[in-house]
Each structure stands twice: as structure tokens, then as C-alpha cells.
């Protein structure tokens, strides 16, 4: 259903990125190199040439038009969390090839080599503005951020961990949807993540879902749309069905800006649109709002 995402004409250049915070900021996925040495990149939206170092310094947001380039999970964790506070959890959970799907093993191997990521989501705990939280950050480079058994399991575990340790949860979604290479097992992750989230809710804990470009299909139609507070980065593509599928099925013309963050805000589907540069501050404020006073309410 989400073939337009996977079929995207853009080719993303990926360079080595280790799972260590310091080096992660130099990854340049989603950024088209215009010159061989990668000194300059062209903004995909306004076509301006941007000095690469400036783009990185600006958290991969175009300084001229505010276009938000896609960024990797580790880059996000780096700019977002209090320095040195992140502790990765459940990194030992990775995808197998449960239904022997044609080409899946090779694909996994290739993606792991190219991205040095083990799976499509990084999970762990850390602090933002001094407030401890549990975190799940997806990475589009890993088979389009698709959710298979391992991504689902890692999210379920971080939700369960949050419920057990009474931590607020923040997820960063970026995904084309369910990972079809695992067939029905991927679909079941929608149920698994939702029910784990209900444990977080039962404990009265805050769940903030941040939607980034793109968040579609089975990820949007499960945990990502169930935040107590839903935030989107500007201009992100967010929706259930892909535009191409909609056009093929309905022959409808889709308005400009269809399924973009601003469209969702207008239709009442999200709470806030926050520029990446403001995100850390906004999250810190929201988290502080929900910090518990010690047993005042319940006793």
C-alpha cells in the first residue's frame, strides 16, 4: 500500500555511522551530495546550496527555507538528550527471516552494513532537561523504518520498561509502515505495541509521539497516533494510505499539502508542529509539566 514511499526516486547517500554519539553527527543520509567531496548540499525544497557543516550545525534543517532533512536515530538522540544521559536498551533484539521471504536476508545484511544499525529503532533511557524518560527512535534508512517483529518487540519492551519504572515515554516515528517481508507477523506488531502502550497509560504515565517525515501505514495506524500529545516536525508526510494508492483507488485529485503536518494540524489530528531546533525545549517543558509530585494525588 505504501509503495510510493519505497519507490521514491531519491537515492539516499549513506556514509559510515557508528553507534557512538560523537561520530553520529557526521552522517549525511538523506542529503544529496552535489559535489564529490560532500562539502555542499542542495536543499531538496528550495534548491539553495548549503555548506554541509552549516546544515549539520543547524540539525539538518535548511537555514534558508526551514526544510527538515531526514536524520538518523543516533543523530536525533545526540541533539535531543542531555549529554551522556542515553543508555541503550534491548539492542540485542534484531530481525530474523521468520517466513523465509525472498531477498529479505540479503536486504537485512546489506542495510546493516550500509547503516551500521542493527535494527530500525533504537530504544533506551535518558534525560531531557534533567527529566528521565524512556525513548524509542526509528531510523528510515533501515528498510524504510518499517516495523517488523524486532522493531515491534523493542518498542513493546521499552513501553513495558517505562510502565515498570514509571517513566514517561517519547517515540520518534519515521516509517513507511509495516515490514511486508515478515508477513502477518509485522501486522501483529501493531496490536503488540498498542497493548503495551495501554500499560503505560494504565500507570498514568505520559506518552509523547513525535511524527517525522514520513510516518505512514501501520506505524501511524498503531502506537504513533496514540500519543497523549502528538507532535510533528514541519512538512512531514503523515497518513494511513499512500498518495499513489489513494489516487489509483479513488481517482481523486489531492490538494497541495495533503497529508503534511500542517494538513493534519488543521484537521485536528495532531497537537503541535515544532521545528526541530525547538523540539528539545518543547519536550523538556512538556515532560516537566507531567513530572509527578510525590504521592500528593493518590493518598
Amino acid at each position, binding site marked *: 500500500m505504501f509503495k510510493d514511499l519505497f519507490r521514491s526516486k531519491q537515492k539516499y547517500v549513506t556514509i559510515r555511522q557508528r553507534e557512538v554519539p560523537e561520530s553520529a553527527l557526521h552522517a549525511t543520509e538523506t542529503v544529496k551530495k552535489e559535489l564529490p567531496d560532500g562539502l555542499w548540499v542542495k536543499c531538496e525544497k528550495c534548491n539553495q546550496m548549503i555548506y554541509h557543516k552549516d546544515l549539520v550545525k543547524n540539525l539538518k534543517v535548511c537555514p534558508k527555507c526551514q526544510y527538515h532533512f531526514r536524520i538518523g536515530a543516533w543523530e536525533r538522540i545526540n541533539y535531543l538528550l542531555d549529554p551522556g544521559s542515553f543508555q541503550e536498551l534491548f539492542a540485542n533484539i534484531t530481525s530474523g527471516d521468520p517466513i523465509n521471504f525472498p531477498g529479505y536476508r540479503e536486504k537485512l545484511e546489506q542495510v546493516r552494513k550500509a547503516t551500521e544499525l542493527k535494527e530500525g529503532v533504537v530504544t533506551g533511557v535518558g534525560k531531557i532537561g534533567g527529566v528521565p524518560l524512556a525513548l524509542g527512535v526509528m531510523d528510515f534508512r533501515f528498510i524504510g523504518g518499517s516495523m517488523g517483529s524486532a522493531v515491534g518487540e523493542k518498542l513493546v519492551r521499552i513501553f513495558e520498561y517505562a510502565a515498570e519504572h514509571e517513566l514517561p515515554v517519547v517515540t520518534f516515528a519515521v516509517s513507511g509502515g509495516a515490514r511486508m517481508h515478515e508477513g502477518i507477523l509485522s*501486522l501483529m506488531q501493531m496490536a503488540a505495541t498498542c*497493548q503495551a502502550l495501554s500499560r503505560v497509560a494504565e500507570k498514568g504515565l505520559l506518552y509523547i509521539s513525535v511524527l517525522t517525515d514520513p510516518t505512514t501505514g501501520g506505524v501511524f*495506524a498503531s502506537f504513533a*497516533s496514540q500519543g497523549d500529545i502528538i507532535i510533528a516536525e514541519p512538512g512531514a508526510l503523515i497518513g494511513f494510505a499512500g498518495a499513489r494508492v*489513494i489516487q489509483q483507488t479513488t481517482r481523486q485529485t489531492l490538494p497541495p499539502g495533503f497529508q503534511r503536518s500542517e494538513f493534519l494540524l488543521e484537521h485536528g489530528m495532531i497537537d503541535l508542529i515544532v521545528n526541530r531546533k525547538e523540539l528539545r525545549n518543547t519536550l523538556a517543558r512538556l515532560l516537566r509539566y507531567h513530572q509527578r509530585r510525590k504521592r500528593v494525588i493518590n493518598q
Partner: protein
Amino acid sequence: MKNGSKYSLDFERPLKELEKRIEEIRLFAEEKQIDMSEEIARIEEKARSLKVEIFKNLTPWQKVQIARHPKRPTFLEYIELIFDGFIELHGDRLYRDDPALVGGLAYLADIPVTILGHQKGRDTKENIYRNFGMPHPEGYRKAIRLMKQAEKFGRPIITFVDVAGAYPGKEAEERGQGEAVAKAIMEMTVLKVPIVVVITGEGGSGGALAIGVGDRILMLENAYYSVISPEGCASILWKDASRAAEAAEALRITAEDLLAVEVIDEIIPEPLGGAHTNPEEMAGTIKERILENLNAIIDLDPNELLTKRYQKFRRLGRYVEE
């Protein structure tokens, strides 16, 4: 209802030819006043064993075709044949009533239950009215409303899944299709009443799962349940939707495949030739299987029920843990 021969499927053609031949001989014998009963019996026997042979060895793609058969019984027909005293309840109280998803109150044997299901049309006109059984967000929001109502009054919930997918349309997106599907899934994971799900035809991805979370998941022999349509998968994977048969194979979407990975609990056998060849028999079997499964869980303590449901969906992933 008789199986209209104009809807016969490709792989049934040899069978249809035999049946046609039997008919011809019968007419000929009648016309000429000669006894050809032996000849007819011989061909009939041949047709019977051919039918068994064909339906024993269906490929996943052939099953998809049976699941999508235009004469396959729909939810409203099953309601008629399985439940008593159905009262349809309408609307999501937010926007409108969605005829693609039908719900209401009914008795199963003498148990009051809430029933919900996708409703495809039985002809072109009805298909247009019911949007080919593909709900908009308001359909799922109606489902959520009726499920919460069932919980309030302690009624078990029975759902019938038969959907190509939640509707992919402009208005559906504007009204939050993703959110509606997610909310329905989320609610079903915590509803304190027993839920039995029957996948009767197409189990089309999120649109199916949105009323497909439960304590017992039953599936008709020729139904399919998949994360993506075989056509969609083929066009992403091989840029060629016509390779859907291969994709149907690769995705493991048949009842047998799903039983093997414990996504479903039980396969409900269909009459030889598919559910549409004998809806009454099909409905009878479904009723019996729902009753047996519901009886096994109806008296469980709600906490135990929810714990078991949680564990059921908790262990469906297959991953590597180093």
C-alpha cells in the same frame, strides 16, 4: 442460493466443463428417451473426485480468489443464519453512519452479544452504497462505540472480518483513518469482555486488525489474512502487480500458514467448493465453532482474560535475541 456459474474461477474450469457435459448428456438422454444413468454416474463420480482434488490442493492465490468471490456469503447473510433477533445499531455519534461496517445486538443461541463486521455489497448497487466493504474512520469509530457499549453491559463481542483494507481516500485521511484504526486496535486490547474474531473472507491488513484483536481468532479455510494485498506486495517488490500469485505465496497468508505461527487459533472448514456453494452449511459450522470457543472463555475473570489476551499478542513476533 445457488452458485452462479458465471462467477466460476479459472481453476474450476475443468470441473465446470465436466458439469456441463453431465448436463448435456442428461438433456440428450431425456430427448432421445434412452437410459444413460450409468454414463452420468460415471462422469459425476469423476467430477466429484476432481473437485476434491482441486480444492485439496489450492494455491494461496486460488484461495485469495475464493475469499474474494462475489458470491461469498457476507456478514448480513451470516447474521441471518447464525444469530437471532438482530438489532442493527448505527452511527459513530461524531460524523455519520458507515454502511461498510455493520454492528448491533443479537443473540447467539441464548447469549446476548454485540456483533460487528465488515459488510461488502452483494451487487454493484449495494457495493457502491457500502463502499465495497471498506470502512472510513467513522466505521471504526462506530465499532469502538459499540464495543465499549458491550463492555459496559458485559456482553461478549463477536466480530466478522472481511475487508480488502480500510478505505484509502482523501476524506478518510482528513478524518484520521490511521488514528481510527489504531484506536480500535488499542481499545480491543483492553476490553474487559470476551472477544471472538472470525475471519470469513479477506483479512486486509490494518483495516482487518482494527476489529481483529480478540481472545479467540478463528479463520475460514479459504480466507486470507495479510499485512499487504498480494498485488500491492508484488508491485512494491517486483514493480509488477501481475505477479500477485507469487507474492501470495511469499507472504504466507493462508489459514494454515497463520495457524502455524499462532496468529489464529483455529481453522473452520468450508464446504467443498467454498463457503458460497453452501452458505447454510458454512453458517452452521461457524456458529458451532463460535459457541464452543466462546463457552471456553465466557466465565473467565476479566483480569485473567486480559492477561491471556496480552500474552497472546505479546508473543506473536519472531525475532533474534542475541
